[in-house]
Each structure stands twice: as structure tokens, then as C-alpha cells.
């Protein structure tokens, strides 16, 4: 075909992300649609939504349609503390939609870096997250947080383990009024509560944020954690699109260190989510480290893409007296430049630029809509 047949927005993004990941040497990881159910029942909280479509395989094993890709990649890659594996995937996952409470098929594209993770690997994954957002939209923000910093701050406040989930929930909502109330109920000194409040209030460009962080957390959070965080973020080329925001709080039972979420203008929620998940690796009896992210392609449907004005460029209608050869010749000639739909009746419900009617072996009428 020689005509200009545009790809759908999602298809374009998938192609551009795949070539982006390829250009960084990440290799495509293709996997089966099914996974043993056991994997998910052991790591339920890691899944974004409750509910897994399960079925019994021919050998009697309980299987599931994948609700998540990361767990399968971790399970199926070899453990290595000396080497690093850089992989990307483009798969459908099956999750319960929060609004309809029904299962939905969601196309996901993402990458995982597993093995000997160092500052550079984290920097590279963040760079790729930023570049991925840039492929999707011209206005985007990457919110970056650090769970190690949060954890050490909560240690400083001596927040008991059983209350941490609620404290983190308040931080995730930027709900300072409840956070303050909760700290007071837990008998945290006002001065210490203020440190946490100030941490949650940080929201801005990395240069200002680190200036504040270094003063605020001196003696509270290990210097090397702060330094490494600052070093990675300030080395990013596109750091004007980064915001340090501690309200990005993924489950600390699975994630640790740097976590991030990407937003684009027009989509109501994050379109990209990722972070370091060494804690999950430990849970899966792995001693190596890992970091990755996923782009949620279903969120991109919110983007304002103008609907196509026409379904097809030209429609040819013909009758039974027209020869096959004449039809083929006429249609092929048009197809050099445009899309052509052949119909042996009226075009019902089709938006076209041009309608060519062929009767008794010759063109009898041409209507144009353009």
C-alpha cells in the first residue's frame, strides 16, 4: 500500500516506546498469557487490583490469566548479583476495573532491570521513564519519591509498624490535617511531626527540593541515601520535568528506594508508574535487586485525539453487470493514493470523502463529501 494510512494513537505510542527501549539495548521479553495461580496468591498485595481470572489447566493445575507482568519476569529470570538483565515487554494484563468491578483487558508496556542494580541503572530507568512520557505527550511531569527517606523519617518519629499504613495513606493523599491528628494521637512530638509535614509539603523542582531536604533531614536520614538520591536526580537531562513529591507512596512491603509516577496533561491519573522493588525480590527469595516501570496504555484513551472525519477515502459501489476485471482495475488505480472500500450495495453508516457508483460496467456517478 502506498497511501497514507495513519496508525491509531496507542499503536504509534507502542511503536515509539519499543524503539526507544530497543535503542537502549533492552531486549523484548515475550511471555505466555497464563501463569500459575500460586504466584499471585502468594503476592496478592503486589497486584494493582484484587481478583485474578483463574482456570484449571488440562493437567489439573490451577492457572491464571496474567494480572501483572513483573512477578512473572522475576519468577522466570535467573538470579544474579554480578550481572544485569535489561528487558521490556508489551503484554495484555487482566484486571478488575475499579469503576465497573468487571475484568478488563489492559495493554501494558514497560521495562524491568534485574540483577546488579547501581545508581547508573536507576538513573537510566528514570531517563527512560521521562523519555517515555515525552513520547506520549508534550506536557508531562514525573513525580519522584524515595521510600527509604520516608521510612527513615517515620523511624525518627517512632511511628509504630501497625500505624504506618495509615500514615502512608495520609501522605499519599497529601492529607496534612489527618496526618497531624494521627501523629498527635501517637504522641509524636510536635517538632518531629513538623518535619514530616514539611517533607510532604515539598513539591517542586529538584534543585529547590534538595536544598530544603538537605536542611530538613540533616541527622534524620542517612547522608548516603540523600546524596545518592540527589546525585541521580540532578544528573537527569530532563530534570525540569521532574518534581520531588513524597506523596508517591507505593506499598513498602514490595517497594523501596526511588519510586515514581508519570502524569500527562489531559489524563486524570498517572499513566506511568514504577520504582525499585528489592523488597519484592527478597520475598521471592532473590538476593539481587530490581527496578522497572509500566506505561498504562488504557489511560491514554483520555487524551484529546480528534476523531477521524472519514472512515475511508473512497467507496465504490457496483452492480452485478460489472466485470471483475474492470472493478479490480478501477479500485487498484485509486488505491495507489487512497483507501478504497468496495461494496455491492449502498454505503450505510460509512463516512467517505468520495462515492463512485459503477453501473453496467462503467462509472455512472461520482459524489464528493470533502
Amino acid at each position, binding site marked *: 500500500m502506498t497511501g497514507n494510512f495513519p496508525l491509531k494513537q496507542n499503536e504509534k505510542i507502542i511503536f515509539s516506546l519499543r524503539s526507544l527501549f530497543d535503542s537502549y539495548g533492552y531486549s523484548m521479553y515475550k511471555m505466555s498469557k497464563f501463569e500459575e495461580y500460586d504466584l499471585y496468591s502468594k503476592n496478592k498485595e503486589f497486584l494493582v487490583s484484587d481478583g485474578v481470572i483463574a482456570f484449571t489447566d488440562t493437567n489439573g493445575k490451577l492457572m491464571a490469566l496474567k494480572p501483572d507482568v513483573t512477578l512473572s519476569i522475576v519468577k522466570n529470570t535467573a538470579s544474579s548479583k554480578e550481572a544485569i538483565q535489561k528487558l521490556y515487554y508489551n503484554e495484555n494484563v487482566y484486571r478488575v476495573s475499579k469503576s465497573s468491578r468487571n475484568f478488563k483487558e489492559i495493554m501494558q508496556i514497560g521495562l524491568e532491570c534485574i540483577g546488579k542494580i547501581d545508581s547508573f541503572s536507576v538513573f537510566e530507568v528514570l531517563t527512560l521513564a521521562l523519555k517515555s512520557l515525552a513520547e506520549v505527550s508534550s506536557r508531562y511531569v514525573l513525580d519522584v519519591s524515595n521510600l527509604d527517606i520516608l521510612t527513615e523519617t517515620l523511624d525518627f518519629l517512632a511511628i509504630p509498624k501497625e500505624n504506618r499504613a495509615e500514615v502512608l495513606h495520609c501522605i499519599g493523599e497529601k*492529607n496534612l490535617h489527618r496526618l497531624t491528628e494521627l501523629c498527635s494521637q501517637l504522641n509524636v512530638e510536635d517538632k518531629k511531626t513538623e518535619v514530616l509535614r514539611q517533607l510532604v509539603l515539598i513539591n517542586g523542582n529538584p534543585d529547590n527540593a534538595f536544598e530544603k531536604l538537605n536542611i530538613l533531614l540533616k541527622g534524620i536520614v542517612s547522608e548516603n541515601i540523600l546524596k545518592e538520591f540527589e546525585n541521580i536526580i540532578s544528573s537527569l537531562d530532563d530534570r525540569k520535568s521532574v*518534581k520531588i513529591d513524597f*506523596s508517591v507512596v507505593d506499598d513498602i512491603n514490595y517497594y523501596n528506594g526511588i519510586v515514581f509516577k508519570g*502524569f500527562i496533561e489531559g*489524563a*486524570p*491519573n498517572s499513566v506511568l508508574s514504577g520504582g525499585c522493588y528489592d523488597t519484592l525480590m527478597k520475598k521471592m527469595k532473590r538476593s539481587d535487586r530490581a527496578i522497572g516501570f509500566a506505561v498504562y496504555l488504557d489511560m491514554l484513551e483520555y487524551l484529546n485525539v480528534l476523531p477521524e472525519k472519514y472512515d475511508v477515502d473512497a467507496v465504490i459501489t457496483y452492480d452485478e453487470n460489472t466485470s471483475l476485471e474492470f472493478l479490480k482495475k478501477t479500485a487498484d488505480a485509486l488505491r495507489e493514493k487512497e483507501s478504497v472500500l468496495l461494496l455491492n450495495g449502498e454505503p450505510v453508516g460509512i463516512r467517505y470523502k468520495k462515492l463512485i457508483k459503477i453501473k453496467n460496467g462503467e462509472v455512472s456517478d461520482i459524489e464528493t463529501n470533502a
Partner: protein
Amino acid sequence: MKQMLNVALPKGRLGEKVYDMFEKAGYPCPSIKEVNRKLIFENENCSVRYFWVKPSDVAIYVERGAADIGVAGKDILLEYEPDIYELLDLNIGKCNMAVAAKKDFRDDNSKTLRVATKFSNIAAGYYLSKGRDIDIIHLNGSIEIAPILGLSDVIVDIVETGTTLKENDLKVIKIIAPISARFIANKASYKFKFNEIEALVKNLAQQTTED
């Protein structure tokens, strides 16, 4: 230039009070005071657009990004758990989410407790934390009738002054959570309209402490 802020306000007295606060904070829209059936009001000069929506729907408009910000009762936020930022307690529309029952009610732990409520999620969460086995009877209004007619043992509902309970021979057994109006924001809008939203939060916070 200020970016247009889309605001979802809860229809009713609380919404009108909230509008006055927004007006004071530099987002007036005089057409909103006109008596008509319009639901959307815009003031281009001040870059603001207000919508009147059902109070229980505010969180949905904000979570889905149809509105950048809104004001919703904490009861709605606890019930639907929307993925939003809860930026401020406006300290108005104060009441309690409570368990109430007939005056002579005694909890019989050997039986499943029948709970009538509009707030199934809140009720389920509360009794789960207590390890109490319950049967939820979801009702959409006049919850107070349920224990009187023997439809339920207790109710979980909003209690403002307690007058309705008293008049129906019911009493509060336990307060689950204090409720008031909260200023909420869509997570993505917060990133892209940060300056406008933050300035508004600061101004509203000041008004809240002044009162």
C-alpha cells in the same frame, strides 16, 4: 496567565457556603447566584468554571478529571475511597459518622449483627476492624426506620444534631469518624495547575482558621 479551574461544588446549602469561600479567595462568578436551572457557571475573567453536582458525585468528577478540584464530605471520601488529594479540612458541614440503635439495644455477640446503612463500605470496614460478623442491609434513605421496624439491629449513618435519632427513639452507640467538608484535587490537575490550586488552598486555609 491563570489557568482555568474547573470546580465541582455539592448542590445545596453546604455548596453555597463553599462558593462564598471561593468567591472571597478570588474566584467570583456572579451568575451562580441567579435563580435558574443552569448547572454550569463560568467567569472567564477569573478563569473559573463551577458545576453544581450531587454531593455524593463530587469525588467522582474530581477523580476522573472532569473537575480539577471540588468540595466533598469526608463521608463520601471514606465510602468511595477515590484516588485524589485531600488538601484541606474546611471545618464546615461538621457531623459524625456513627453507629446508632434503639435505646434498649444490647449487642448479642452470639448472633450476626444486622446493619442498615447507605455507607456499606464504611460499615464493613468498621466491623471488620472489630472482627464482628455482620449482615449489611444497603438502604438509600430513611435509615432510621430500619431498627424500628426490626429490619436491622443497628444503623451506620451521619448524625448531625441527633434530633432525628431522638425523635425515633434511637441513640448513638459509637462514633466511627468525625465528618466535615474537605477540599479535594485531581492528582494530575494538581501537577499542571499547581500554582492556582496551591494559592487557593492557602487562602481557604486562612479563611478556615479565621472563622
